[in-house]
């Protein structure tokens, strides 16, 4: 089984629109949305949820005013100033370390486990999908991403699908780290802007760190041809395949407004034919073809 993770570093490069378009092109894959914080893939795939499961995160301190003697022990120990002088816990600031719970001489602090999100197994017109929603202002996004990817693998195995297409989160932090470990390959969707180049470089460094093969796809490449040339040079120097140059096209936004992938919106347009080539190039990279004989 192979897992292709789509990342971008910088947000807004068109990562999710491309992931959805690839889902239309891959004949039979499992979709996995690892952007649990601001997931958008479902807006294009309209998944029908078949199974919904609560995601348990860490605990949160709750002080029982009946038992509390206002000794101030917890206030002094808390490194997040989450317990004010009035001995009330600020749930947003609480890190869930539970140190106050263990040190409270009156045992006045409870530590209930919080439900901090939900994850779903769904069906879409392009195949099954595993996705999640982290609660607003919650922590543990990395844990939820890890869980979603595990479930995606399990489901793909059950259904006999050998490709998982994962829409990754932006950035290079905790949820991204949880998205790349053990992936077959990563496609970085970048754009020819100074920010796009800067963030791509950091995303590449991250993938190197976790020893995952990387390929680069330049979206809106005609917006700044000089910067696109710079991206190609950087990829070449790093020995990374450039799998596509996708022109800027308002059709992507129009497709999004209709809740369609670009190929469903206009399968005969120029952007669609470019995307077909990009997908073929991705599936032809050494990372994606490796071991194909043995698998078949």
């Amino acid at each position, binding site marked *: 089984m192979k897992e292709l993770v789509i990342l971008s570093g910088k947000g807004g*490069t068109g990562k999710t629109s491309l992931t959805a378009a690839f889902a239309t092109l891959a004949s039979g894959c499992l979709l996995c949305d690892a952007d649990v914080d601001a997931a958008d893939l479902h*807006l294009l795939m309209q998944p029908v949820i078949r199974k919904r499961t609560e995601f348990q995160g860490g605990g949160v301190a709750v002080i029982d005013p009946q038992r509390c003697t206002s000794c101030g022990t917890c206030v002094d*120990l808390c490194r997040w100033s989450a317990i004010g002088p009035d001995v009330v816990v600020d749930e*947003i*600031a609480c890190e869930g370390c539970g140190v106050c719970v263990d040190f409270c001489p009156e045992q006045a602090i409870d530590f209930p486990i919080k439900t901090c999100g939900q994850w779903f197994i769904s069906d879409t017109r392009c195949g099954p999908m595993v996705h999640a929603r982290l609660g607003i*202002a919650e922590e543990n996004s990395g844990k939820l991403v890890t869980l979603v990817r595990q479930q995606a693998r399990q489901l793909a195995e059950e259904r006999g699908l050998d490709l998982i297409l994962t829409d990754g989160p932006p950035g290079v932090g905790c949820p991204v780290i949880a998205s790349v470990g053990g992936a077959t390959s990563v496609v970085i969707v970048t754009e020819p802007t100074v920010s796009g180049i800067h963030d791509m470089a950091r995303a590449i460094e991250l993938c190197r760190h976790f020893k995952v093969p990387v390929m680069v796809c330049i979206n809106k490449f005609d917006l700044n041809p000089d910067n696109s040339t710079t991206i190609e040079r950087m990829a070449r120097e790093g020995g990374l395949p450039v799998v596509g140059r996708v022109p800027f096209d308002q059709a992507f936004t129009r497709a999004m407004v209709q809740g369609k992938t670009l190929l469903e919106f206009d399968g005969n347009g120029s952007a669609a034919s470019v995307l077909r080539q990009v997908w073929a190039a991705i599936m032809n990279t050494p990372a994606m073809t490796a071991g194909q004989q043995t698998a078949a």
Partner: protein
Amino acid sequence: MIISIASGKGGTGKTTVATNLAVSVDGPVQLLDCDVEEPNAHLFIRPSIRETKTVTTPVPEIDLEKCNQCKKCAEICRFRAIAVLGDTVLTFPELCHSCGGCMAVCPEGAITEKGRELGVLEAGAMNGVSFVHGRLRVGEAMSPPLIRAVRDRTWADGLTLIDAPPGTSCPVIAAMKDTDFVLLVTEPTPFGLHDLQLAVEAVKILDIPMGLMINRADVGDDHVRDYARAEGLPILMEIPFDRQIAESYSRGDMFALAFPEWKARFREMIEKIETMTGKGAGAQ
């Protein structure tokens, strides 16, 4: 006054707005780039960096001479960052949240703390804009302490602009918490609207006044405006899609400097925010 510039979705133009605002206002202004995973504001402001500081977070260090393997440290740690195995104590610094619980509980005084590097903080200035950003070490997962270190540089008075990370989870909360106003940058597309709704919920939890800036205002559909009306959220400014603006952005240029009429509009927006919050640029 502290204004956070945020957006649920990445790539809506948050950094464009933060940097153009910074160069548009008169008087002293400070820009704190708290998007430490992908700090980009410096590519536009191009400050001369005068200070570089490594930011660390405390993690336990065990003195095995003093340790008697009582396991109290492993029991208190909710993040499984410390384990007692045979006559040795293992720590997993990348899992440690720096709560200090193990050090406080150890009856033998065997635990002290040492700093673990999260990234760097850089500070400088350019054209009257005082600039600070954090740069998370690639491979590092723990961004909030670095964001807080950048936030600690907030001026006691004057205008502070915060470029917040995308999303609605712990990093963006660390960036927006205790600021006076949140300017949410969005675009009128289904993705823009969906992520805006999440961001609005996060700002409501923090109980901070907010307003919208619609970027690429003429693409997509009208649902963002309908939503703003229904929620009573003021739309403070709109920027149309303009290939010239997009190209200037791609080069790392700030269009408020090239087009004075935009500079005036950014300034007007600050004035609106001052009126809404009842705070002048100087007040905190």
